[in-house]
């Protein structure tokens, strides 16, 4: 397990966190290369089935990040995301998803350093937890079958 590299999938909004991650780049702040970013217009767009799908694809950790509350480019999308998340995390917890592997955060377009810190801390945490094999196994092995989406 010495060579284990966690696989992190990040769902971010276009206006704050994606721009914040761009700023990390322009500031040349280095961070762990384990993250793959999926760009969406708004955290409000994040259907939490996407999180399950990410784990189904063998992700060891998931980051969800958008604009700070009150700063949403679309007025209230992040509030919807937050409210939905508060409900959904209880369901995830109930069905046995390891909640330590899902990180919900706010990173603004001005917080390049925070994005790097966020990714590094999530990678470090998930590295300690080890690969998330339990979840994909339930779905028939890593990367095998997509969860049915209507």
């Amino acid at each position: 397990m010495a060579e284990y590299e966690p696989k992190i999938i990040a769902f971010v909004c276009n206006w704050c966190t994606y721009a914040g991650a761009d700023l990390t780049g322009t500031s040349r702040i280095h961070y762990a290369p384990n993250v793959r970013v999926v760009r969406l217009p708004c955290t409000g767009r994040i259907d939490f089935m996407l999180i399950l799908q990410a784990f189904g694809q063998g992700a060891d950790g998931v980051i969800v990040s958008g604009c700070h509350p009150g700063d949403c480019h679309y007025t209230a999308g992040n509030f919807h995301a937050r409210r939905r998340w508060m409900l959904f995390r209880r369901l995830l917890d109930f069905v046995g998803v390891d909640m330590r592997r899902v990180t919900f955060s706010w990173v603004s377009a001005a917080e390049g350093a925070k994005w790097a810190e966020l990714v590094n801390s999530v990678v470090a945490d998930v590295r300690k937890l080890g690969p998330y094999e339990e979840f994909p196994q339930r779905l028939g092995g890593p990367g095998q079958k997509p969860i049915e989406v209507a």
Partner: protein
Amino acid sequence: MPRIGVFICHCGENIGATVDCAAVAQAAGRLPGVVHAVDYKYMCSDPGQSLIKEAIREKRLTGVVVGACSPRMHEPTFRRACAEAGLNPFLCEMANLREHCSWVHEKGEVTTQKAIDLVRMLVEKVKRNRPLTPIRVPITKRALVLGGGIAGIQAALDIANAGHKVVLVERDPSIGGHMAQLSETFPTLDCSQCILTPRMVEVAQHPNITLYTYSELESLDGFIGNFRATIRKKARSVDESLCTGCGACIQKCAQKKIPSEFNAGLGRRTAIYVPFPQAVPNKPVIDRARCTYYKSGRCKLCEKACPTKAIRFDQEDELVTIDVGAVVVATGYDVKPTSFFPEYGYGEYKDVITGLQFERLASASGPTLGEIRRPSDNEVPKKIVFIACAGSRDPAKGIHYCSKICCMYTAKHAMLYSHKVHDGQAYVFYMDIRAGGKMYEEFVRRAVEEDHVRYVRGRVSRIYQKDGKLIVKGVDTLLNSRPVEVEADLVVLATAMTAQPDAEELAQKLKVSYDGDKFLNEAHPKLRPVEMNTAGIFVAGACQAPKDIPETVAQASGAASKVAGMFSRDELSREPVVAVVNRQPPPVWSTCVGCFLCETACAYQAIEREEIRGRDGSLIRTIAKVNESVCQGCGTCVALCRSKSIDLQGYTNEQVYAELLAL
């Protein structure tokens, strides 16, 4: 079969030094559906773009992925290149190999692998992209300006002078707003009315401006370019077409002791009145709550006095509906009354007045004709105390913010007083002097150095009456908090500037957001200062935040130029990243079940109800429909939809899941 082209940019050394671009292109070339994959030094340069265009034509590409910088940087560039080569621009995606990869990771295999992953995700996405066309929205080239203060006047004149029709709505009987009440203006001490009233007349006479005074917005429906406003014209009880503004009615009116709003309660007016002699329009209204006839059924003295028979006791409110393309909100501010301050006498001391009341005392058109005389006994005050930050910057009073104009107008008041009462002494109690602005600091220094106004840094804790004087107790924090006591004849409170009492109600009518202090929110605090988050609605003046006249006028002109810019085109064109509800052939029609959860999630009121009817006109189902000219494309409705019937163009479920499945 998809035919995808992948173009990997080195960005000089920016990507090339860390990521093995050739390897990325090679790996991309092996992805299913990719028929063309190359790398190049500068993809955004002219030869780079030509590379893409040629490939689109020669390889008949159905989709393009450019692995380069952030899409926030060059997505428009590459989409334009695709469009020029005949490929729908929305079939082009960018993988962010620079900001998200080469700039933030070390050189090595892992980084190259990440670049390959990023490209693969976007290749899978672009395979599922659909050609989209920009949405076109027609524009009604008429603007609605709410509020006839200096902000509304400036905005209306600028839009009208640009050649567009304007409807200006003011709820008071005259336009002019607070600026008409002011005596002189800082830092030049030019007379407020002298610079304002010509503008008011210009508004009334402008062929492009329709003026509705004594009127209020009843409702606003529609969306950018296509609003429908309903305006309530309150009954003036005077036929404006017949009234000549002679004023005979006003002289005869039996009610003469009504506190005048224009004089901030310091003067008196009649029940049939014009707020001030320079009013525009100069036609009276009857204050029905105060009029003897409406109270007792008898009087009608004004009717007898009117030479043109213009009095209409039976006039009713009238609702007018107007189509407009844009709205400028310029509804202004209010100030806290003296009754807000228990420590300064709850408004019970006649000689403790607000800054606005002092403006009326100092104004040549005011109740004392410009002489400074205190309200209680009409004497000229020999000692006057001005208290800055009365309420402002005081969390205990629930007002955290700085009212911004008080430092300047307090200096102006003290200066005007010194000019008018040569043997008097003015004191100013202040917290800090905030005199940022052209010639502002110089102005305050002039008050101190030339007009010998005594500035005391410290708060006033209490005011009480003693032997006909007002005892002002405070401390001088610059002298070790030594107690200071002034026996004043008149005290002027620079009371906090607040939002209009009904600002919240207005914001809800307009569906725009407002802050905790009920000031309206601009779309972006730095980059979009005159737009509001609802497209097509703009903001100007102190309804957005406390601000002085120059700033208000600048913002009003900014809002007006935004409106004029919008009206310079016949239709609006916008990105087609909007939500759509699926439609299917009968008998399914749509998988939408009509729960309208999406309606509650939408911050823009973009969800409409569509009725599906049979040939006989009977209602089959009601399903959701997205008004694409209102939808902003956040996708909150998509995530909420139980039956997955609504999807976001450009970020469809199919596309996003495909990205995930590529990992």
